[in-house]
């Protein structure tokens, strides 16, 4: 279409490329500012590149808050992420297989119910859930954040159902003739074929749990249990000391895993969104 580098080609790339840089400029600015001394970040905001690069912000930020280093917050978050991710992948794939492949009475009803749950604002159940978890004595533990993951997540169930439906039923039937039971069909036929979708589920599970703020703010009280999101929020509350450098540096630290996973597994992320309309 634009093989010759015509003026149109230049205009197109100038426009689109320029807009892309404009969109990403704040992130680049955040990154560059994290290498500037705190007291010069806003004075020199006009120039992107630091005059002299310093790493002290990272060392300063890593010390963390209240005697807990940032490593503690990362570890806390990682534990929640892993437990949640395993739960969501296992439960959502079992449930999705049930909906996509098995015939049982009330399937349509439960599927419709799941689609409604998909659209239900979480705020509606926030207060009663909090009350129930507090009665169970689960406050200030990661249970309220992780246990529900083992009961399926509508978004992921929907994504996997869509995907399983594209697998030809002849495969199941052949397996039945070979004497496979239902669970064997699930584990030997369907699971291996849906691994790309499971990767998508795992990646989004990671993103949502890593970024989550409201849940941890509600359920975790002691700073030693804080997640990275809560730690950043703490940095912000202490902003009066204007240690922007450390705050920016730790902000970058929390973004690194997100970027890394995206660039490694980009294909699954893009396909997941394009085919199912997952919100990013």
């Amino acid at each position, binding site marked *: 279409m*634009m093989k010759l580098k015509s003026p149109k080609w230049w205009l197109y790339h100038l426009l689109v490329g320029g807009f892309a840089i404009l969109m*990403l400029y704040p992130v680049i600015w955040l990154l560059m500012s994290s290498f500037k001394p705190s007291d010069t970040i806003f004075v020199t905001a006009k120039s992107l590149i630091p005059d002299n690069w310093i790493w002290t912000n990272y060392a300063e930020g890593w010390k963390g808050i209240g005697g807990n280093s940032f490593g503690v917050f990362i570890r806390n978050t990682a534990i929640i992420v892993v437990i949640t991710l395993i739960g969501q992948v296992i439960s959502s794939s079992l449930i999705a*297989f*049930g909906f996509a492949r098995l015939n049982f009475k009330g399937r349509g009803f439960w599927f419709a119910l799941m689609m409604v749950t998909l659209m239900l604002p979480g705020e509606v159940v*926030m207060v009663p859930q909090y009350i129930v978890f507090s009665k169970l004595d689960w406050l200030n533990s990661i249970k309220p954040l992780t246990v529900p993951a083992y009961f399926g997540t509508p978004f992921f169930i929907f994504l996997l159902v869509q995907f399983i439906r594209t697998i030809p039923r002849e495969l199941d039937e052949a397996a039945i003739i070979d004497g496979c039971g239902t669970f064997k069909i699930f584990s030997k036929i369907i699971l291996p074929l849906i691994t790309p979708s499971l990767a998508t589920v795992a990646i989004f599970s990671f993103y949502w749990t*890593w970024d989550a703020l409201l849940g941890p703010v509600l359920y975790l009280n002691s700073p030693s249990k804080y997640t990275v999101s809560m730690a950043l929020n703490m940095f*912000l509350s202490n902003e009066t000391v204007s240690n922007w450098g450390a705050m920016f540096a730790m902000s970058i630290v929390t973004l690194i895993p997100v*970027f890394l996973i995206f660039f490694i597994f980009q294909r699954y992320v893009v396909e997941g*969104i394009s085919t199912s309309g997952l919100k990013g």
Partner: protein
Amino acid sequence: MSTRVVKENVEANITIRPVSKRSRAIKENLTGYAFISPFVIGFLAFTLIPIVMSLYLSFTNYNLFAAPKWIGLDNYVKMFTADPRYWQSLKVTIIYVFAGVPFRLIVALLIAILLNTASKAVGLYRTLFYLPSLIGGSVAVAIMWRNVFGDQGIVNIVLDMLGIPVVRWFGNPTAALWMLIFLAAWQFGSSMLIFLAGLKGIPKSYYEAASVDGANGLQQFFKITLPMLSPVILFNTVMQTISAFMTFVPAFIISKGTGGPLDGTLLYSLYLYLQGFEFFNMGYASAMAWIMLIIVGILTLIIFATSKFWVHYESEGGR
């Protein structure tokens, strides 16, 4: 002899088949429920029972420490007649949703159309434009946004360079709300990816036929692209509206948990959180949650009900 065989076969059909079919159906039902049981249990425990509880609590005065006290409709009456902050949060949220969602979707659609070419750089651009969506929900980005729009932030530096008077984004409730709306629009990437996938599904022959008939680019956009994309637009509009209604993190971080300045960023979820978990008015917060549920439900119904006028489904059933 042959009649006997036939008779036996008939008997076999009548007596044995139905039983095995029935037991097979029972077994199928059991297996089906075994697989979806996590959802069924989770739905009852984490959705249905809490929703019913929430409805009950909305008619009570409850602070988590004493038993709930039945007060009838008082929470709802107070919300609409005696709580100006509630109206403010409703107003702010409606502006946020009705400015932010179309803003985001229009940018997403425009960029998707720009990227729907054969250019080799499309993959790169797609990635770059998606990145804000990828990180947009994080606290780190909210902190970044807060500083980008700060008094000495780069937005004001640019405004100053362009000769436009600088804006004190935190000094004025309207400006602060627009800061949130810009943040929502900035994350157009995921919608853009969905639109791109939709655009790829439109057969090239439609455009070729239209060009032959002399339709210009604008006509092609309104007569082919928009109708063909309308189911995707519908889906996006519904999901984005719901999630915009629930926005919490950016308002919480950017206003440092207050909803300020002058309640300018007091989004519904944030006010609900403050009522429930800062002031411990859990009954009141539950009533707020129910009104939110009703609003979101009505909005979704309106979007779906009007969809038959603007959503074009292919008779073939699409993909």
